[in-house]
């Protein structure tokens, strides 16, 4: 049926457009315009064919009042290859209300306004994702008047979007990880550049499946503001810690999995943990993983330029909060080491001292107290009045 559609085109168009007199004009199109494509689109509906008769013409556009050019050409091959084309979506499924020519008036000032006027239709099918975006930093920015904030179609070109998740596994295709970074980079190019230069970004582009891409940390549709207290407080445990406490993953690279424990054991980590547990919405001034290691431009600790194995580089991070700190001060941080006779021996021996001293003192006290209890018990049994 689809294969021979082309022959039936004028007839079927009549059937659909009978009530819409202007559609009749389209009947003439095949007669007067260039020859219809020899290979018909395999899945487009008849209606789509009608739309594409005009909209596949290259260079179709409309100049908007502010001078923006709104492109109106749709590449039939591109849309057919897209996930929407594969799913058999018709033009009018999204472009609702357009049934003939001339189209209903579409009055927008700018191309951005056109995008904002149209993207809401995504919610019809992608309700979950659309609802999630309503909690996102992008939506909040948009709602507060920043028209640059990303909406659905800024990240997903509805005419070209390929399938993202593998229907077999429900997981995104591996190559999506790099696409994600590219998509975010469209608007966040400066951050993208930092990320690509980082140890994570560098490995991502070498197809390393373990390193995070943008969405690994920031989420997808309900992307929270990275300055939000709750987001920041959770970052050591739920962001960095998720991979960096995984022995299997870290084992591949010889990275310690004790980083989260040693952070929480430190004054800063203890404070952050208590903030997260007790008052997750209160602002705090203690450093997170990202405050010392960097946010997007995270480098290896043995990086010759900025690596944190070098005291002076630690001091630079200390001084962001402790401006008067001197070089000795940087040794107050145990650099994720478990104190041992080799690393931080003073701390190790203080701990050892109390490990022995506390049981010794309390044990001595306990023995004496028990002996006193015993005496009283014996004397009471003997009926001594002076118990």
């Amino acid at each position: 049926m689809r294969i021979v559609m082309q022959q039936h085109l004028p007839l079927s168009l009549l059937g659909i457009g009978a009530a819409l007199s202007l559609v009749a004009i389209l009947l003439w199109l095949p007669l007067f315009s260039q020859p219809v494509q020899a290979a018909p689109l395999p899945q487009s509906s008849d209606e789509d064919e009608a739309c594409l008769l005009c909209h596949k013409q290259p260079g179709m556009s409309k100049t908007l009042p502010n001078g923006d050019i709104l492109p109106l050409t749709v590449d039939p091959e591109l849309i057919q290859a897209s996930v929407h084309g594969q799913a058999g979506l018709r033009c009018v499924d999204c472009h609702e209300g357009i049934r003939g020519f001339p189209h209903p008036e579409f009055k927008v000032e700018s191309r951005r306004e056109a995008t904002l006027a149209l993207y809401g239709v995504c919610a019809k099918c992608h309700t979950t994702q659309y609802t999630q975006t309503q909690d996102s930093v992008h939506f909040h920015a948009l709602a507060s008047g920043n028209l640059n904030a990303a909406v659905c179609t800024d990240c997903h070109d509805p005419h070209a979007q390929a399938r993202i998740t593998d229907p077999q596994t429900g997981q995104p295709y591996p190559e999506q990880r790099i696409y994600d970074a590219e998509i975010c980079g469209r608007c966040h190019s400066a951050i993208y550049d930092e990320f690509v230069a980082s140890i994570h970004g560098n490995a991502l582009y070498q197809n390393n499946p373990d390193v995070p891409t943008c969405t690994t940390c920031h989420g997808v549709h309900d992307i929270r503001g990275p300055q939000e207290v709750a987001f920041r407080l959770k970052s050591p445990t739920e962001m960095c810690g998720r991979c960096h406490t995984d022995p299997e993953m870290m084992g591949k690279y010889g990275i310690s999995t004790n980083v989260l424990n040693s952070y929480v054991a430190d004054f800063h980590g203890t404070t952050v943990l208590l903030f997260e547990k007790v008052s997750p919405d209160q602002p705090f001034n203690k450093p997170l993983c990202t405050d010392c290691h960097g946010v997007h431009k995270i480098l290896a600790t043995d990086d010759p330029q900025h690596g944190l194995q070098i005291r002076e580089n630690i001091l630079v991070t200390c001084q962001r909060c402790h401006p008067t700190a001197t070089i000795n001060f940087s040794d107050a941080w145990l650099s994720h080491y478990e104190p041992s006779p080799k690393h931080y021996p003073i701390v190790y021996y203080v701990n050892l001292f109390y490990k022995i001293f506390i049981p010794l003192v309390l044990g001595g006290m306990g023995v004496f107290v028990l002996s006193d209890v015993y005496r009283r018990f014996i004397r009471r049994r003997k009926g001594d009045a002076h118990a």
Partner: protein
Amino acid sequence: MSQTQASSRYLRFTLAQRIEHLVMMLSFATLALTGLPQKFPLSEISQSIVKILGGIESVRQIHHVAAIVMMFGVIYHILAVGYKLFVLRLRPTMVPTLKDIKDAWQAFLYNLGLAKTYPQMGRYTFEEKMEYWAFVWGAIIMGQTGFMMWNPITTARLLPGEFIPAAKAAHGGEALLAVLAIIIWHMYGVHVRRFNKAMWTGYLSEEEMLHEHPLELADRKAGLDKPQLDPLVLRRRRAIYFPIAAFLAVLMLGGVYFFVFAEETALAAASPVETVPVYAPRTPTPSPTPTLAVSPEAPLTWNGAIGVLFQQKCGLCHGAGSFTGLSLDTYANAMAGGKNGVVILPGKSAESPLILQQEKGGHPGQFSSQELEMLRAWIDAGAPEK
């Protein structure tokens, strides 16, 4: 206690001592309550305490205030002891002696049934001395390590930075020791074994004195506990001691001030880690499909700007072999006009039907006024192809 027995009451702690004990007890308890949750932050009990007290920052503030109160208590105690020892020349009854070790050993043997008698002790038993000196030891450790944590930057100027986490380790270890010692030793000694009310009422009965402090009772009965003081000597000693005490007080209060205000350790908010702009769109913004754009530099000819403009604006309806009867796809077609005649009159833009039609406005493919101006100029220039 009835009136008849009033004469056999012995004052054990003066009101000042009782107030001092109360202040130390409250500050110690507050320090423990606000300190231990910081040592064991993963415990749910700790987190509940922190929550009740209004978050970790306010817990630390309470901890600091309690520490200052305790420091004042210690300063008062030092000055009061100095007065008693130097001015009043009281016997240093709290100083441990060899007899205390013997007493402790004898008491232990007695408890086990290996000694016939319980040791006879003076004003302070070995148990009380142990507790007092444990407090002194604890106060020194806690004060020093507390200072290091309160003022880590100042500390790191004088000592290796590693002393700060070491101080934290010692502060926590010592805290645990102190709290558990209080529970085991103090609670048992004066609450469980026999509820000793002397620290509240101030007095012990003669029977209690006989049991617990027989040597002190004997001294007091013999009048040896209060050395006779010549008022003149007393005045002279005071005249020496008070200036010294005032000087020491100022010194120690200055120490507390330094303790509290030595440094501004951390900023309320750190400077940002990354300073790159968040929104930095790539230019030009990628477009899903290429568009034909009229280049501003294109010459005012059909092959330059005009042909593209017609294709863009009119191509949909006035394309090749258009159903509208007018094709604007090529120069020849455009100049030939449609079924209603010529639409472009070279040199006469004002009379060209195309311009007239557009000037009315509302045409499905409407030129902007700028584009229309371009078209007029092109027609008036003779509508050149090249």
